């Protein structure tokens, strides 16, 4: 498996695809840094505990934050790296040659998946490192140990989230012979999860518990809970909630309405949660993402292992 992993990793790093993705991600990071430095003064007050994390979470009036960029880019990068994992081997006539070598069949799919994941990890880690470095240079406030810890967990969750999208695109590459079909299916699912799922969730919630200006607080909360519950089917929502809770420690609840009520009653921004509590808050999200990534990979693994190589 090591030989497959090494070769695939080298291929990825030498490919034009990797260069394009990296430049794209780099541009996003620089843009995010720009947004953050422009707006950081308006957000930070004397008693702000986590100044450094603000670089990642601040959005401008028109431009979104680094968190938004990265949650957009991870699926795209993962899909772009994974959508032709198996189908390209099949189409190019490499697969039967490869499988007639004395290696276990799962070495092929494992090695390729891990190589893609390694590339994804390299991109994510470099992005976070670049943003941290530039941010440190520009705002001049070093991160404290808890911020570093939160960033590390953020990177780990991001890689796991990327693993889910990669597993999904590998799954499609096992089922579809044409790379284009696999890519479109993956992108389609991503658009559905990332953009339509929250709309659908909102619509269903509004049907179940209609909310208007006369609604009681209970009804608004109930509406938000239904919408949140449905939206959590989407891995994008899970990831979004997880990273927000990690990088915005002031967030005491994942339900936006509850948060709003809490802030209203307190009359000020809430005190940040300790790291352990934030982690506890995102634990279900994290486990869910790992689970769906594992399921996707398991299905493609089983399918690939049982696939019959047929005469053409």
């Amino acid at each position, binding site marked *: 498996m090591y030989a497959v992993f090494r070769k695939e990793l080298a291929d990825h790093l*030498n490919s034009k695809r990797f260069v394009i993705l990296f430049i794209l991600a780099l541009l996003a990071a620089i843009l995010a840094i720009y947004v953050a430095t422009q707006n950081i003064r308006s957000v930070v007050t004397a008693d702000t505990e986590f100044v450094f994390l603000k670089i990642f979470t601040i959005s401008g009036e028109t431009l979104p934050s680094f968190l938004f960029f990265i949650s957009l880019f991870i699926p795209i990068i993962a899909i772009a790296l994974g959508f032709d994992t198996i189908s390209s081997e099949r189409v190019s006539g490499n697969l*039967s*040659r*490869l499988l*007639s070598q*004395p*290696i276990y069949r799962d070495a092929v799919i494992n090695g390729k998946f891990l190589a893609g994941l390694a590339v994804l990890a390299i991109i994510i880690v470099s992005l976070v490192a670049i943003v941290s470095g530039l941010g440190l240079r520009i705002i001049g406030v070093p991160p404290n140990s808890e911020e570093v810890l939160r960033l590390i967990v953020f990177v780990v969750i991001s890689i796991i989230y990327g693993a889910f999208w990669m597993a999904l695109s590998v799954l499609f590459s096992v089922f579809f012979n044409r790379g284009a079909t696999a890519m479109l299916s993956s992108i389609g699912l991503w658009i559905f999860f990332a953009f339509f799922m929250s709309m659908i969730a909102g619509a269903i919630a509004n049907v179940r518990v209609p909310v208007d200006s006369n609604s009681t607080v209970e009804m608004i909360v109930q509406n938000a809970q239904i919408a949140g519950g449905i939206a959590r089917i989407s891995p994008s929502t899970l990831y979004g909630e997880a990273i927000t809770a990690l990088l915005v420690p002031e967030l005491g609840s994942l339900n936006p309405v509850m948060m709003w009520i809490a802030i209203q009653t307190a009359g000020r921004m809430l005190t940040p949660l300790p790291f352990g509590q934030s982690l506890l808050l995102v634990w279900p999200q994290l486990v869910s993402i790992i689970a769906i990534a594992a399921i996707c990979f398991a299905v493609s693994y089983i399918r690939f292992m049982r696939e019959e190589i047929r*005469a053409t």
Partner: protein
Amino acid sequence: MPQAVIETTNLTKKYDAFTAVEGLNLRIEEGEIFGFLGPNGAGKTTTILMLLGLTEPFSGTAQVCGYNPTREPLKVKRIVGYLPEKVGFYEDLTASQNLKYTAELNRLDMKEAEPRIADLLATVGLSEVADHEVRTFSRGMKQRLGVADILIKEPKLAFLDEPTSSIDPAGIDDILNIIAKMAKRGITIIFCSHQLPQVQKICTRVGILAKGHLVADGPIDRLGRQTSGGGRYRIEVQIGQPSYKLIEFLKGIKGVVDVTGSLDSLLVTCDTDLRSQIAKTIIDSGSSLLGMKIEEYSLDKIYKKYFRED
């Protein structure tokens, strides 16, 4: 009796309702160049895939160098090379990088593998383009690279699936020469093709597969006798100063079945190869022997004969 490299008993493969291979009994011995013939869809590739352990048989057993390919695929793959019909390489890698990858997958020692790779590229005539990306290669060059690719692991046995399809005539000759070289190294070769003249040129034995059944199996000349001469030898002789009695003399040889033709050109049909007796008889009768030719069988004829019977 030489050792059997491949032995199958009642090997059968079914895909849903379609039977690709049925009750195949095949024995291939060490050092043979076995021509595996049959029209498209006859089950040649399916048989190879089963022998490689890439596909499981529906029933029956197969043994490759004493291993069961379904149970011990890795042991089989270590000693068997397979050149698929439409062989592909990583287009962005060079010829030698592709071969190096195969060497790595075979866990060869890189220090030994590198000179061997250069050696093999020279054997298949690709030394000059060793560092060119495979995307620039022609079909024939890819096939030759494919041959080098299977030789890296120094196999005991090589399956070549249509190695000459869609290659120009000069390229075909190259490939056939390389295959002949492989056989000289002691590699048993299973050569799948429907380019009959090529098979006839290099194969020691052929098997013809039709609709999943092995309909003929044996050396080409024996198959030829079975199909066109009813299993008999036919010998053509040209005679100078013929005498009328000669036909009688020839018919008198033990084993001669029939003598036909005009006086100076006769066709002798006999049960065994009686060329020396025939020559002796002609000369003893006072006639002179100008020429003698044993009928050769073109594989083309044999092949067509089997597929006319369908």
